[in-house]
Structure formats: C-alpha cells, structure tokens
C-alpha cells in the first residue's frame, strides 16, 4: 500500500510540473467519497495531491461542460416560450449576431453562437451559457434599425463572454459538481456517479434559469454586459449609441411589475447614466440605405 502511495506521489509530481494552474482540491468531494466508501483514504489523498485547482470555481468549467449546461438552460427557457418560426427574420438575426460575436472577448465557444426569436410580446432577451441567445418579438419591435438591434444582441453576447450564467450557479453546488467530476475522472467511483452528476447538473441549470427568468443579474453584471456591448459595437463598426437609444425606448415601454425585462434588469435610466459615464450617449443613428433596407426586409413583419 505504501509503495502504491509513493508511486502516486511520484506521478503527482509529474502532473504538477506539467500543469500551469495549481490549487488545492476542496475537501468536500474526497470526504464524501471516503465516507460513502467509494474511495479509500489513500486514494482520496492521492486525488487531493495530484489534482490542480479541481473544484475551485466557474473558471474550471470547460467549454464542453459549459455547452451542456447552456443547452439545458436553453431547453428550459424554450419550455416557457414559443419559438417564432420566421426564417427570414431568424436568418438575419443570426448573421448579425454571429458576426458581432466575432468581435467579442469569446468568439469561439464549444459549438458557436446561435440566436432564436421567441413568439412573445414581452420585452425580453436571454443568454444561456456557451452562446444560446433568445430575443422576443416584443424586444425586436422596439428596435428602430440594425444598430439598435446590434446593441441588444451585443449585450447578450457580453453576458456569455463574462460567463454571468455560470457565475449564477451557487458556489456550494459548483464545488460538489466539479469535485464529483474530478473524482469520477480519477476512476474512483465504481458506479452511481451518474445520479450525483445529474443532480448537480439539474441544480446548476435551475440556478441559472432562476436568475435569467425570475431574479435577474446584479447591477454590476448588467453594467459589465453594457460595457462589453459597447466594446463589441465599436469593434464591429456600429455606433454604440444604439444601446442608450434602446434603453430609452425601454424606459417608455416597460411596465413596472411586468414579468419581463423590467423585473430582471436595473432601471433603464440608471444604465443610461452609467453609459454616459463611459462616454456613450443616445443620439439619432445615421441612416444607411443597405443596412436600413435589410433590417426592414427581415423584420418588417415582426
């Protein structure tokens, strides 16, 4: 047994040298493993020693894990909203949105960005992890031109880049989930890990959808997404004034207490004030014959 432990220690040293990120695994997973008899004390020790930053934070969620979480968050949103199946409009929103994403901080997600229109009069938009983005017809109706639509999509893309969805997962749940994955990865679970992982997965999805659809992000996260949107708009060549323009329109049309954007976002006037501090003010968007024509052609019937 001692010999085996020594071998493990040697191997651990190898891994330590090969890894850039170092950290100490949370006690939680290994304690659970030992208590439930699925792993021995020495195995637990070996896992603790050899693993780098195992269950530290949302940053340890790989693009692949993020993708599976995003799919299910999206599937939950789509169980509450009908899809608006208008091919011309959906195509246009995807060309615009995916082009904007190229100028975001995270142009490459596991399977890329995709946009879908929800058949709802609510003024709302959601971004699920890994780039599944939803926008309601009510929100599209508020957009006067391509630049203002670009502002809404860029704000949602920035939520994905900043991993705000993943940050909504409760810390204790994340620790359990990532530790389960790590211990499973080490081949220490003989069986039964699927149930534990599924529970952690379902809980993570519920934490995110609860935040997106009911509680809303913090004001700090919304400010971050607005700042990210301004950066994307500028990099792609759009006038960032599209964002305060949209917020002004929302200020007029949002009904306090309605189950939509008003409920899950800070008051538009506060965000407009913060954008002014970033040097971005509402103003009329300059007309452009091609942009205006393609916008009207795609969304004229929204």
């Amino acid at each position: 047994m001692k010999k085996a432990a020594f071998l493990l220690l040697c191997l651990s040293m190898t891994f330590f040298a090969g890894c850039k990120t170092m950290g100490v695994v949370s006690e939680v997973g290994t304690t659970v493993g030992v208590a439930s008899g699925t792993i021995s004390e020495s195995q637990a020790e070996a896992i603790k020693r050899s693993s780098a930053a195992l269950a530290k934070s949302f940053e340890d969620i790989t693009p692949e894990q993020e993708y599976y979480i995003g799919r299910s968050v999206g599937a939950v949103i789509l169980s509450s909203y009908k899809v608006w199946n208008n091919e011309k409009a959906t195509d246009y929103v995807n060309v615009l949105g995916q082009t904007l994403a190229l100028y975001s901080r995270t142009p490459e997600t596991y399977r890329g960005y995709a946009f879908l229109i929800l058949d709802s009069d609510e003024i709302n938009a959601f971004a699920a992890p890994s780039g599944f983005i939803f926008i309601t017809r009510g929100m599209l109706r508020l957009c006067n031109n391509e630049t203002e639509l670009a502002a809404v999509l860029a704000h949602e893309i920035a939520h994905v880049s900043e991993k705000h969805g993943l940050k909504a997962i409760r810390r204790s749940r994340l620790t359990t989930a990532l530790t389960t994955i790590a211990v499973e990865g080490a081949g220490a679970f003989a069986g039964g890990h699927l149930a534990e992982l599924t529970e952690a997965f379902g809980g993570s999805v519920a934490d995110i959808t609860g935040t997106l659809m009911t509680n809303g992000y913090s004001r700090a996260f919304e400010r971050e997404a607005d700042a990210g949107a301004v950066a994307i708009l500028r990099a792609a060549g759009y006038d960032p004034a599209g964002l305060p323009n949209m917020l002004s329109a929302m200020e007029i049309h949002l009904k306090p207490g309605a189950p939509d954007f008003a409920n899950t976002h800070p008051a538009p006037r506060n965000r407009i004030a913060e954008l002014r501090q970033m040097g971005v003010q509402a103003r009329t968007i300059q007309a452009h014959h091609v942009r205006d024509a393609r916008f009207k052609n795609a969304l004229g019937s929204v």
Partner: protein
Amino acid sequence: MRIHIPVLFICLLLAGTAVMAGTLQVQTGSTPLREMPSFLAGTITNLSYGQTVEILSRQGDWRRVKVAGSKTMGWVHASALTDRKIELAAGDALSGSVSSDELALAGKGFSPEVEAAFRAENSKLNYADINRMETFRISPETSLRFLREGGLRPEGGLQ
C-alpha cells in the same frame, strides 16, 4: 527505498517533457484552421475536438500551428486551444499519464449521458429547437459580405 529511485527519475524526466512540449489541443467542438489570422479569413480545414496541433508562432490572440501528424499549417484562435490534456476515450479508467484535473476535460462530467438522465426526469423541456439552433451556422464569407455591404468598418479591416 532503492527500488523507487528509477521511478522517481522517470517521473522527473516526464515532468520536463510536459513543460517543454509546444503542443495544444482543440477544446471546442470544432474550429477552423484559417489561411490568415482573422475570423474573416478562408478556412483550410476544420479541426475537431481533441485534435493536437504544434505551435509555430503567435500573433495577438492567434496561433500559427501545424496539425500533428500532417504537414497542414494555418491559423487558429487561441481561445479554441487548451494546454490541458483531452482524452477522447470517454468512460475509460484513469490511464497512467493523465492527472485527475486533466480528466475534467475528458468528455466526462456534464456529458450527453448526464443530459439524457436530466431529460428523462424533465420530459417537457424543448431540446428539439436547441438542436435546430445548432444548425444555424454562418460562414466567414457571409459575415464578410454582411459587413462590407453594410458599409461597416470593423477593427482589423475587412479581410
């Protein structure tokens, strides 16, 4: 104790190799190998999840790479690459050369299997439209044309 010294030596040697190796793996479902360091550049070929590349040089967030086991060279965006080891044989037990943190990337954890178990408990969720969304792929040529026709002047120019 003597018996362990060669083991220790081999491990230290392996550690050195791991640090020196200039190879990375693709961590997204797939990523284009591009002709130039730009999202608007043409695609030489698509690299798939877990594929290994050797780094030749770098320019900002772009890496000029050679595909392992071939002579194909091109540019890949750094965000699609990882230095953590990806083992593709999901379901295999821990092999001797991979640490447990690296196995977090091994197609385990939140996987199709976990999604299927979650779906079985939540039959009303709409995955059909999520699958459909994944087919909405826009090519670099389409983005380039969209920007050009729209009279947009993005950072990095139109190429």
